[in-house]
């Protein structure tokens, strides 16, 4: 993407709360928040070829750490940010690093188990987490004396986090670590024979993934102002996975676009009520069938069709 495209995109994103109704801004805020766990998933799925269904739980840990610190211990959200991210990273690494030795379906099963562990703790360790009562009255984020308690204001905070995380992820993917990860996802044996410490690189990918998810959870908690274990079931995990897969795990922009398309689709699919997840299933299925490498692979396809049509037209 050229600089002009980036400037236009950023200006358009900044203009959303000015031009769009609150309801749309609300959805846009969710898109910005979900971008984080989805990009995080890209580190694991894009580079270690492993599919995680625990991202929703790690997202939940980010949310719970800040939720509990700010309500029970009176911390300010700003001070709770680092513990929130660190909590997600520590739990994900402690539970996930052993699972990294597994591959394929076995890894997926392990992440489901990790998800269940986290969910069970959130639900049943009532003294700490308040269990099924959830955590109420979480303060909103604020800058100085301005509370970001409207969707319009919060949107800017979420957008700032999302854009920063996108730039950081881009820097990581194009750095030495990113190249190590791309090499090992192509051929683990050749990568280790080129001096890439395979296991450590995978664990770092996992930790990065958790840091992004934890940040997303932090933003989610302060936007929702109320969290409950039922918000962090397998459903958000599947949602994040769908988004990452649809975008193409290795394409940061693809994942962001997919998050936007699918998150607003959840709104369009609301009339389907409880069949919403079936519609999601169909999207997942067709996505796998037609764009296994993500929606951005459509772009060259469409260009190819156009070129072929034009040349066919020119010949006749």
């Amino acid at each position, binding site marked *: 993407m050229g600089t002009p495209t980036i400037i236009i995109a950023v200006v358009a994103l900044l203009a959303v709360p000015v031009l769009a109704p609150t309801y749309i801004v609300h959805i846009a805020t969710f898109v910005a928040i979900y971008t984080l766990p989805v990009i995080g998933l890209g580190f694991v799925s894009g580079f270690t070829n492993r599919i995680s269904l625990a991202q929703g739980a790690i997202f939940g840990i980010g949310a719970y750490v800040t939720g509990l610190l700010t309500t029970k211990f009176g911390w300010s959200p700003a001070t709770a940010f680092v513990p929130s991210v660190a909590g997600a990273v520590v739990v994900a690494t402690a539970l996930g690093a052993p699972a990294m030795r597994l591959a394929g379906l076995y890894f997926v099963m392990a992440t489901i188990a990790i998800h269940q562990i986290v969910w069970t703790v959130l639900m049943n360790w009532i003294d700490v987490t308040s269990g099924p009562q959830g955590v109420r009255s979480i303060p909103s984020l604020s800058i100085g004396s301005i509370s970001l308690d409207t969707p319009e204001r919060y949107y800017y905070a979420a957008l700032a986090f999302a854009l920063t995380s996108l730039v*950081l992820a881009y*820097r*990581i993917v194009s*750095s*030495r*670590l990113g*190249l*190590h990860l*791309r*090499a090992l*996802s*192509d*051929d683990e*044996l*050749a*990568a*280790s*024979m*080129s*001096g*890439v*410490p*395979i296991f450590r690189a995978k664990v770092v990918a996992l930790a990065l993934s958790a840091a992004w998810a934890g940040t997303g959870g932090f933003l989610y908690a302060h936007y929702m102002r109320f969290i409950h274990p039922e918000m962090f079931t397998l459903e958000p995990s599947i949602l994040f996975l769908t988004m990452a897969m649809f975008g193409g795990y290795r394409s940061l922009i693809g994942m962001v676009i997919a998050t936007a398309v699918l998150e607003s689709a959840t709104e369009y699919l609301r009339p389907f009520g409880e069949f919403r997840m079936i519609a999601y299933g169909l999207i997942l299925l067709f996505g796998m069938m037609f764009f296994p490498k993500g929606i951005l692979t459509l772009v060259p396809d469409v260009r190819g069709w156009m070129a072929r049509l034009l040349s066919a037209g020119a010949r006749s």
Partner: protein
Amino acid sequence: MLRVDNVSLSFRGVRALDGIDLSVGRDEIVGIIGPNGSGKSTLFNVISGVYRADAGDVFLDGQSIKGLGPSEIVGRGLARTFQNKRLFGSISVLENVMVAAFRHQTGSAFADVFGLASGWQGARGSEQVARECLELVGLAEAADIVARDLPFGAQNRLEIARALAAKPKLLLLDEPAAGLNPAERKDISALVETVFARGVSILLVEHDVRLVTGLCSRVIALDHGEKIADGAPANVVADRRVQEAYFGSEEGSDADTAA
């Protein structure tokens, strides 16, 4: 440089390597020949840390490297190529080589991500090393091609460039001339000599006996996981057991046709 000491390895009771001894001195190109299934690749995998020997030991510069993983063994100064071309298909030719060149890059990963000077300079240093290696194997022009689009004949040379980027003292080449036409074989031979002239010792597995005898100062022959000959190329090729291993027990075949 390298000493393999009485190494044995079995797979589910099948003895793949049986008490192999061999050594590669500094400034030596040693070739390993043997029919298919004689244990050449298995031996390479044991030396490079992909497999762990059941018995025996492997020493590099006098230190045991048995039980170390491949990435640690590369760190000790041993690099290898693969017979079946294990390139990183989705990244560019230059990046393939840079992955291995990073081994010598100092500075933390954080410096890279946050664009600090040390990260930036380090990356430029690695790129420089990678470009030199590509130059050496004659792939400088192809630096920006995605590796999977590289023609077959060039893939061997990229494997060699990638191995060289790790700056090894000893290079293991697993059939570098497999599947190449005669002109390309000649190029690979010349390349191996160039690399050797730069002070890298070489251990080479190759089916092409003519190429092995042309390049190597010493040749080792394997059959059924055992070493059956070790010595000057002409003597090893003429050895009766080697002849039998390749051609059965009939006498009088010309070893040069063994390719």
